[in-house]
């Protein structure tokens, strides 16, 4: 089936098999391999992207469902060559160890801050319930999100 999707500001059209998951469309068809597959069972959030501004686990969505939508992946977050404040936060607070969960953590955190501009540490922990870090580096992840929220005016 033919779909048209705006990804990181660029419209792409492709013919896809209905059973192709959005995450495979992004990674295998478009080469946007920043988005990861961790669990493949809707639990870990490492595949998180934004669909029309909302955080989505892209392993739990067919590419055909995204027809007509706007998608942002981790590759589309930095604007004009400068990192998004959330990316800076993860860098400065060392919010990653192996880095596998990081793109999903960052996308989920950006979406979370849109709805909760002034989060407490506990809000952040609840807000990121859909994202698992196998390295268990949660402490610094929470610090990174907090730092980003302050930088973004929270």
């Amino acid at each position, binding site marked *: 089936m033919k779909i048209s999707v705006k990804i990181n500001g660029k419209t792409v059209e492709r013919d896809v*098999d209905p059973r192709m998951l959005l995450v495979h469309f992004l990674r295998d068809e478009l080469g946007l391999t920043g988005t990861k597959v961790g669990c493949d069972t809707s639990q870990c959030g490492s595949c998180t992207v934004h669909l029309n501004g909302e955080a989505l686990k892209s392993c739990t969505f067919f590419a055909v469902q995204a027809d007509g939508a706007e998608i942002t992946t981790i590759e589309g977050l930095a604007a004009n060559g400068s990192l998004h404040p959330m990316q800076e936060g993860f860098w400065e607070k060392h919010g990653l160890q192996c880095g596998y969960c990081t793109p999903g953590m960052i996308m989920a955190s950006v979406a979370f801050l849109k709805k909760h501009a002034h989060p407490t540490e506990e809000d952040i922990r609840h807000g990121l319930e859909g994202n698992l870090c196998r390295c268990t580096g949660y402490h610094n992840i929470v610090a990174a999100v907090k730092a980003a929220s302050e930088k973004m005016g929270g």
Partner: protein
Amino acid sequence: MYPAKFDYYRANSVEEAVKLLAENSDAKLLAGGHSLIPAMKLRLTQPALLIDIGKIDSLKNIKANGSLEIGALATHARVAASADVKKWFPALANAASLIGDQQVRNFGTIGGNIAHADPASDPPTVLIAAGATIHVRGASGTRAIAAEDFFVDLFTTALEPGEVVTKIEIPNLSGRKSAYAKMSHPASRYAIVGVCAVLSMEGDTCKEARLVVGGAVAHATRLSEAEAVLKGKKLDAAALKAAADAAIAQVGDDAMGDITAPADYRRAMVGQYLQRAIQSALG
């Protein structure tokens, strides 16, 4: 993981979805996909045709006007954030806010949730407690099913093949006090036990209590023994304890168990969460 091959059709209206369902016996509706797609990836289900209803905007509305009507495609995030739901039936807004995680709430829908009828779901419990009505449409027209009669067994509802849930209607509960108390699975956040209480009070005395348990049993069920214990009583600690004991006795051998929460533990927690729901409803 790829699901088995299927054909995909995007329905533009409920009528079209109903027609396609009638013509294709091996078809399934696709709403938010947050129960169906994981099951298809595991090949627990392999429909030949998916009818995507996700873009039918008329099923997304939430409106309060005499009763509260929630379209089947309202996402959990929208139900949780809706000013009408918070005002009309805060227990439902709270239950929706406790579902899974932000990603799941953004895409999972209330209609898909009740049609799926996972015993560990939250909405069935609160909808039965509210005395909600489920509106459905099939090839032979529309019908209304009381939430209490809708959930029949594990993953089994009163929906006939070919029927589509269109909206959920919640009666006017003004003057009632309500709350939902949930013990979440530590990883998935699904309900291990969830209890909803909707109380009619006259001063300290309970005129009527609607108490419903989910999570611990095969489908959300009214705790009628505990309801009877509380009727006409002052809701003091002794009454709550008596209601909890009645609830535990009613759940009895129906309690389900697994590696995270064995049956006796869940049964005991029904009593605890029943008391928490009532206390939180009373504020």
